[in-house]
């Protein structure tokens, strides 16, 4: 199917379905656009896809990323120093979607999106083939500004759910979920962790019981063992800080090896 005929939500669904058909967890890779330098992003996105990534999260840098740990903070600072703007991120999305028919999401904070303009983001995001956005500081209570613009053009605003979210709140939030249900594995900011939270399975179970959408787990995932532990629990994993660390250590090659190891670990 061509880009134009699928909405963002449908593209996300297609990516998860493909992974499921291949009996593995979907792997969603986050990379800050413009890190370590502007020219690097295209090659890194390709490397992630070559290694089997199902969905790309393009990190839109922000000066005050309060939900992020040290790794993403540093990457954002570098990207901003490299002059990266939201327009640059849209351009990267357009290129990788056109070239690879990739499923691409934006991950970024409220202020740059609102400054750019919700309507403009919707229109240009759609034109670039973007599938949706993840905005960690925009809870459902405040999201109408973006939703009203994004939903009509089929862009998914993907909500996050936390271990601290009570059942009653999950009951309220999950019917409004689009794309996939993003479960934050821990109480905390992004950043590679040694071990997966002990209560992840129970938490994911609480979410899964309330939605038909695929469920992905993110924050803290850094090793193939973490992915293995989530087989049969979640439908996908999101990896960010550990991907940036892999880039820092070994560039495209390092990223490719790391992402492949996660894809392999997710096979059931």
């Amino acid at each position, binding site marked *: 199917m061509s880009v134009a005929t699928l909405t963002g939500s449908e593209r996300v669904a297609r990516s998860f379905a493909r992974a499921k058909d291949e009996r593995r967890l979907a792997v969603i890779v986050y990379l800050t656009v413009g890190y370590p330098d502007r020219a690097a992003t295209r090659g890194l996105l390709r490397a992630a896809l070559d290694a089997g990534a199902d969905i790309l999260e393009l990190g839109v840098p*922000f*000066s*005050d990323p*309060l939900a992020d*740990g040290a790794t993403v903070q540093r990457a954002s600072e570098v990207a901003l120093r490299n002059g990266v703007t*939201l327009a640059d991120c849209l351009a990267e999305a357009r290129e990788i979607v056109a070239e690879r028919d990739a499923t691409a999401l934006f991950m970024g904070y*409220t202020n740059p999106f609102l400054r750019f303009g919700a309507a403009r983001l919707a229109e240009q995001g759609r034109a670039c083939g973007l599938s949706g956005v993840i905005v960690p*500081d925009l809870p459902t209570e*405040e999201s109408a500004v973006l939703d009203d613009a994004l939903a009509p053009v089929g862009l998914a605003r993907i909500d996050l759910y936390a271990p601290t979210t009570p059942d009653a709140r999950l009951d309220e939030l999950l019917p409004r979920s689009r794309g996939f249900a993003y479960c934050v594995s821990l109480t905390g*900011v992004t950043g590679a962790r040694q071990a997966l939270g002990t209560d992840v399975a129970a938490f994911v179970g609480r979410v899964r019981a309330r939605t038909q959408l695929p469920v992905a787990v993110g924050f803290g995932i850094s090793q193939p063992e973490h992915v293995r532990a989530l087989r049969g629990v979640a439908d996908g994993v999101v990896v960010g800080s550990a991907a940036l660390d892999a880039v820092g250590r070994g560039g495209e090659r390092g990223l490719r090896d790391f992402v492949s190891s996660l894809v392999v670990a997710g096979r059931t």
Partner: protein
Amino acid sequence: MKGRFGEFGGQFLPETLMPAAAELETAYEAAQADPAFRSELARLLRDFVGRPTPLTDARRLSEAVGLERVLLKREDLAHTGAHKINSAVGQALLAQRMGKHRVVAETGAGQHGVASAAACALLGLECVVYMGTEDMRRQAPNVFRMKLLGAEVRPVESGTKTLKDAVNEAIRDWVTNVRNTYYLLGSAIGPHPYPTMVRDFQSVIGKEAREQSQALLGRLPDVVVACVGGGSNAIGMFHAFLGDGAVKLRGVEAAGHGIATGEHAASIVAGSAGVLHGTRTLVLQDDDGQIRGTHSVSAGLDYPGVGPEHAALHASGRAHYVARTDHEALEGFTLLSRMEGIIPALEPAHAIADLRAIAKEHGAESIVLLCLSGRGDKDLETVMKELG
């Protein structure tokens, strides 16, 4: 809607914190409705903070600036040397009531950090204060005071290494330790319910000052003026006068090296609507929505946003906001010291520096009530360097 001030305010938080913010709101409302909480707070404000603070009729100052009368609300005489203690004691009491044994706070000038550390020491709570390394350098005496009071001061190296980044770090800590940690926010900023709660705890300033003005003058002042960083002393002062239509409200921001230089912290005078630290308000940002670096000689005003209620008061025209430069603030600092024998903090020195303009705009016959939000001990090193 709750937590909204016109088009400003709200709760722009990670989902992990949404239940905590709701829990805080519920606990705060229950505490306010509980006579035992209110009387315990009143007792601490009297016996620990030293309230009510005096109202000083500043005769020589008023003559020097060409005003009929200037009344100083003496928050500099509150325990720990600034108004910050009013909210710190209230919130620490709330933290204790909520069963949170660990408190995190951010600080710029160090006044809120010291106030939080003192309140936590009093109530036996663990206290961690985040402070930008740039601020640790320029407010060194306060770093030592916090440590003496048993708090752990964690240096913040990210971003601009000032208040904005200390808030980011405190929120990150809160996200991580949300189950046992209370975030003791120091100004009327941040997500709901903080702007309302901090304003309520600080509104004791205006309530007292309004009564004291009535007692002294038999009438209300013509103009009420306060410096505005995040806006807690100003909103605490303004709130009692919001219904007094004849009383002009005036907030003074930091113009740093001058608005035209771009090196300032005047979020209302020179900012635009945006979302920062969980609230929609006026912020200093570039065309891409990145929060801009700020500059002020006073660490407590060196913040690229402002409380959402001030943004709304500005939008409605109920309050008027201006900005004074570093240079003017230093003049105000010296002026008050020489005229009244009171060394102010650099933050309210911005309000002192605005008095001549008030005389010009509102007339020499005006009676002005000024919130002297803190004392200058913490700033001596900075001022020595600046004045040579």
